[in-house]
């Protein structure tokens, strides 16, 4: 070990030795590499499995979008569109929905993998493509929820750290009680409460709509951006409230468990100032697991937005999903689900792969 360490410091120029030193260098990390490969393999399998699961699920749904759409059309505008069933059949032929499920599955995989997330046309928004529909609205979802999540994380981590650090002070229990209450409140209830109070009773904040209907989207115009932000205040802050609370509590318990560690006693024994102990020993060690939780939370975003987007009339993924569901537009549903699956799993993968690099403790576990 010792010799090995020396060789780490000053590698020899002699090629033969250099190779050996190189081997020596790599040798301790082979377990890490193996771990990475294995984890990545599992990731691929999971993605594939989940996507397949979703595919089978959607395509075994009883409702068939075209007969729904056209029987609806026939009833809605009388005497204009006729021959609904035939038309529906024609469309199904056109889109290969009459093929056996396995063939459809093959095509589906090919389109998604080779043609870059091409999920065919959206049925209710025909002829628009699913990809277009989703990617046009994705930015809103990301903009709102990721921002909210990050803010919540930042605030939560800070508060949590402080609450944990002053765990013996009386007043923290109040803060904790509040946080707990917030954390357990279903987010949609907070949302509705905010709309009722701030939007409806006091009429301080705009509720829903990404910006004033009169405005034309123009991201160079400061007024427009201000308006968008102004409209974002209520949704974002209500999400921050909820998520911030849970992040706070998470960070606090992390801090407390860290504060019980031997190395904290040792740090105190070394006569370090509380500031340094807090910064370098307590916070630092509690932060990394907290990063993990952020990664996981971010992954869950898309699943979490359904109700909120519906309540705050945000033109995001959730809205599309709900409408698509109502008319069985399973291409779109599939797209959204696919997106969320990949996001969740990828973030999980990133966390699993990079945390060891950030947190030596975990690296030790893997070796």
């Amino acid at each position, binding site marked *: 070990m010792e010799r090995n360490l020396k060789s780490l410091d000053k590698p020899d120029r002699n090629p033969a030795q250099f190779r050996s030193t190189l081997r020596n260098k790599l040798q301790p990390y082979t377990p890490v590499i193996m771990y990475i490969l294995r984890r990545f393999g*599992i990731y691929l*399998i*999971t993605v594939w*499995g*989940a996507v397949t*699961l*979703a595919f089978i*699920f*959607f395509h075994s*749904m*009883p*409702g068939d979008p075209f007969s729904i759409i056209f029987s609806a059309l026939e009833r809605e505008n009388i005497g204009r569109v006729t021959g609904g069933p035939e038309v529906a059949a024609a469309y199904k032929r056109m889109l290969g929905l009459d093929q056996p499920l396995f063939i459809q599955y093959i095509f589906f995989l090919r389109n998604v993998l080779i043609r870059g997330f091409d999920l065919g046309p959206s049925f209710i928004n025909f002829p628009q493509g699913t990809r277009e529909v989703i990617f046009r609205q994705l930015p809103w979802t990301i903009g709102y929820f990721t921002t909210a999540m990050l803010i919540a994380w930042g605030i939560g981590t800070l508060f949590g750290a402080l609450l944990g650090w002053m765990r013996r002070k009386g007043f923290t229990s109040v803060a904790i009680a509040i946080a*707990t*209450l917030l954390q*357990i*409140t*279903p987010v*949609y*209830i907070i949302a*509705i*409460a905010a709309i*009722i109070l701030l939007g*409806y009773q006091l009429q301080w904040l705009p509720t829903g709509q990404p910006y004033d209907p009169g405005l034309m989207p123009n991201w160079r115009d400061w007024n427009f951006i201000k308006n968008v932000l102004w409209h974002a205040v209520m949704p974002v802050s209500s999400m921050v409230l909820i998520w911030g609370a849970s992040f706070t509590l998470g960070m606090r*318990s992390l801090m407390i468990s860290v504060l019980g560690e031997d190395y904290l006693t040792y740090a105190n024994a070394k006569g370090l100032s509380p500031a340094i102990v807090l910064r370098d020993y307590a916070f630092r060690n509690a932060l990394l697991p907290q990063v993990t939780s952020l990664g996981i939370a971010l*992954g869950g975003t*898309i*699943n979490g937005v*359904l*109700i909120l987007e*519906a*309540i705050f009339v945000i033109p995001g993924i959730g809205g599309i*999903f*709900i409408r698509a*569901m109502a008319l*069985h537009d399973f291409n779109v*549903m599939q797209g*959204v*689900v696919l997106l*969320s*699956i990949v996001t*969740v*799993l990828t973030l*999980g993968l990133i966390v699993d792969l990079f945390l060891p690099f950030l947190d030596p403790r975990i690296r030790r576990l893997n070796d």
Partner: protein
Amino acid sequence: MINFKLTIGILLIALLLVTAIVGPLITPHFFPGEDPTEVGAYPTLDLPSPKHPLGTDILGRDAVVIIINGIRLSLIIGVVGGFMSTLIGVILGFIAGYVGKRTDTILRIFIDMVLVIPILPLLLLLSLYIPKWNIFTMGILLGIFSWAFVARTTRAQVLSLRERSYVDLARLNNEGTLEIIFEELLPGLLPYVILSLAGATVGNMLAEAGLQLIGIGAGLPPTLGSIMGRAYNGGALSLGLYGQLLIPAGILIMVFLALNLINMGLEERFNPRLRQYAEER
């Protein structure tokens, strides 16, 4: 020594259960000779009055009564779903944790898959094709597709349990697998199972409510969620029927609060055992 949080939590739950069970028996006495839950029994969307403290709903039923029934229905959905998901979750999680090795890997992958698919709304959609569609089927469906989380926590617990020395001891005394499972592991697992059950129950209640709120999975007798949803989507506030929106919401929060109190209380009681569970959540 009695635990404050635990007591409060249990009291809240008890209160709720009593309302859910006894309520429907009492309410008829306040409406002699009429059925307050009958569609069109009274004018629709009436303002609160001594007779109808929360007014009437869009189908002309007394709001108080349908909220009380709503508690019952929501609880049934929650409990049925809770049992369902706990059953599946615990079994799979247990297998994954106990058998370990490749089985574990495969099951874990499967669990992750189910966890990432936002399957609940789709399910409610599908449910509309079920000919006999009632709260029990609803609960069961919710359960069938919300077991993954339970499975994950259970697995973690089993993993930590089977490393305990007494289990090794049992192995060394070469007890049979079943003996080990039933005498050593399951007793240790019980607290988590109970908590998962409670958690899953409340989780399902809230999930149902949330979806009802945005009008997915309509077509049930009025659960708390659909009462809330109809109030919100029917402009209850402008009409002055605040209660029909706020009270169901309050009840839902209360349920969740109670559960968390119990959870925390138990943690304080058997600290080391449950802390890990708490961190899992």
